[in-house]
């Protein structure tokens, strides 16, 4: 079986060339530090969080997991008069970065754009990064943030019954894991999970992971680095918990409705498609979009492209249906 990769969408291919100086397909463990300091992460995190005054922005420090440091939540509340004083949906955002990069600003522009349309509150959680903090630091931080958000929803203008988990890449994987964890711990019950190109499977052995080696963004080398940082020697072995890699979950029943999207030309294509299939097989509700010629995170890196506009419109449409807007 040869591994001819699907071609990138023309516009996305051109955009990829433009960003190749700050984003390369691979990531080795010894390159993590340099990328953390580099322009790519800054670029993704540099934005006007108020969206021209549509949001009031604050950073709240809230209790972390038991025995662990506090965590920081970025809270963006809509300022329009029609939304003030009425409990609004909450988009609980978990940032991406392969478990080793990023902060709670990264990628929050997507949720803010939806929130502007929906009048929602955005809460973006900071979590400890690997490899300094291996599993389960990330998922426990993210869980602690969700518990706080549900308990204090009224304080931030949110409706605890209408919390939607959302994240891209590692943030998508953590959102999926969070849905599993809060189901099993009988914690807060999210209304839905919006998983954008989620990082789900530590085994790194799907056909798409081989097919896209050395291409696009986040190839199998980078993926091995990310999962290795999170799990150390456990990675790929028999003992990886579902809360670390949701693809390992045996029981996918009883989860909130899911939205999943992924590009056809990326490492995660096959694991995302498989996860959606398993959600349906478990009797769940899931909507899956595979965007032809999309590279990993294309709609975040090249939001102007026609394919990105379509992908973002699909995300918002799903949220509107979920929230009955």
């Amino acid at each position, binding site marked *: 079986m040869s591994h*001819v990769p699907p071609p990138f969408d*023309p*516009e996305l*291919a*051109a955009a990829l*060339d*433009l960003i190749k100086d700050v984003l390369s397909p691979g990531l080795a463990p010894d390159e993590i530090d340099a990328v953390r300091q580099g322009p790519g992460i800054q*670029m993704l995190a540099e934005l006007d969080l108020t969206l021209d005054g549509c949001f009031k922005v604050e950073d709240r420090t809230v209790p972390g997991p038991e025995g662990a440091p506090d965590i920081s939540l970025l809270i963006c509340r809509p300022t329009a008069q029609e939304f003030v004083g009425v409990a609004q949906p909450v988009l609980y955002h978990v940032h991406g970065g392969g478990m080793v990069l990023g902060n709670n600003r990264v990628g929050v522009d997507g949720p803010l754009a939806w929130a502007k349309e929906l009048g929602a509150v955005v809460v973006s959680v900071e979590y400890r990064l690997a490899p300094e903090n291996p599993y389960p630091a990330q998922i426990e931080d993210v869980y602690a943030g969700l518990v706080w958000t549900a308990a204090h929803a009224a304080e931030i203008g949110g409706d605890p019954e209408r919390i939607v988990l959302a994240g891209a890449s590692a943030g998508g994987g953590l959102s999926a894991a969070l849905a599993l964890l809060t189901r099993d711990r009988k914690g807060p019950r999210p209304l839905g999970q919006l998983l954008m190109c989620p990082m789900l499977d530590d085994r790194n052995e799907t056909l798409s992971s081989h097919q896209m080696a050395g291409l696009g963004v986040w190839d199998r080398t980078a993926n091995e680095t990310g999962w290795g940082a999170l799990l150390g020697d456990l990675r790929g072995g028999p003992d990886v918990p579902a809360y670390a890699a949701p693809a390992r979950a045996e029981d996918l029943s009883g989860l909130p409705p899911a939205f999943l999207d992924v590009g056809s030309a990326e490492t995660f294509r096959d694991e995302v498609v498989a996860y959606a299939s398993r959600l349906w097989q478990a009797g769940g509700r899931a909507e899956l979009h595979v965007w032809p010629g999309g590279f990993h995170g294309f709609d975040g890196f*090249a939001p102007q*492209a026609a394919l990105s506009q379509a992908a973002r419109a699909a995300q918002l449409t799903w949220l509107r249906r979920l929230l009955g807007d």
Partner: protein
Amino acid sequence: MKELAGRLTALDPDAGAAVQVIAYFDRLAESRAGLEALVRGAAVLAGVPARLVDADRRVRVRVEADGTRRETDLPPDAAWPSAALTPGGAPALWLERAQATPSVVDAVILERAAGAVRLVLDRTRGRAPADDPALVETVLDATAPEPARLHAVRGLGLDPAAPARALAPHDGRPRIVPAHPETGLPAGRLGVGPAGPVLELPHSWAAARVALRFTADGTAQDPGPRVVYADELGGIALLADLVAPGSEPAPDVRALEAAAATTPWLLATLHAVASTASLRAAATESNVHHSTLQDRLTHAEHLLGWPLRTPQGRLRLHLALTMRHLSRS
């Protein structure tokens, strides 16, 4: 992309950004992106809306800096930076930058975008006046509004209620003909799309282009059909997705090429074997005696390494001959 383009222009208003702009449009042109993608590239890189207007060809595309397409009735402002599609021609592409001061980056964006737009227009509509290429392009453009496409169908003298098909000539621009044309098909290599309602002509066009890839010159060096009908390909059409033009040929194709390099009669003979119902018919087709054909096949089997006179071997030969056409760039 926007942030990056902004960073580049802020950091290095001349050389660095210009290099990126050139690479961006080169890449779009390479992958045969359409007009909207090119205009969007100009808008996004410049950070202002861009528009392409070519009244003669009935082309009108306007894209805002965030990449969304939004048309306007307002005429272009003469003060905006602009470029013509032909040297000395009227402006056709604008960056909607008010109070613009001359900028190297704007100039490079306009120059590269206009060049790429010109290529697309030449490729997609050619020059012959007989049937207006702009109308053909509109009919074949799935994103054009249906009323505009129906209008263009009438402009081409076609009956909007009658089935039609798209033709993809190897040399020449796209054509649209009735399902059963009264005049003959154009000469030369040709992909013929399936007949269907005129609003489905974009599909017929896509299928015709696939069919074109299965055609050959019909010479001894390149034997095969000059005209291929998309709806006669059946499952064979799936091969077109698997074998990219210019890709590394499959081992059987390499074996064919290697054998053909030393054996002048090989390709024509094998094509005759693959495309006729019997070896007798193949011998007639090749103008050789039946026993000569048998000798040639023995020789060819030796060169290729697989049998040619079994059903499986013939299928393998047929696939190899077909993939050979598909892998040509």
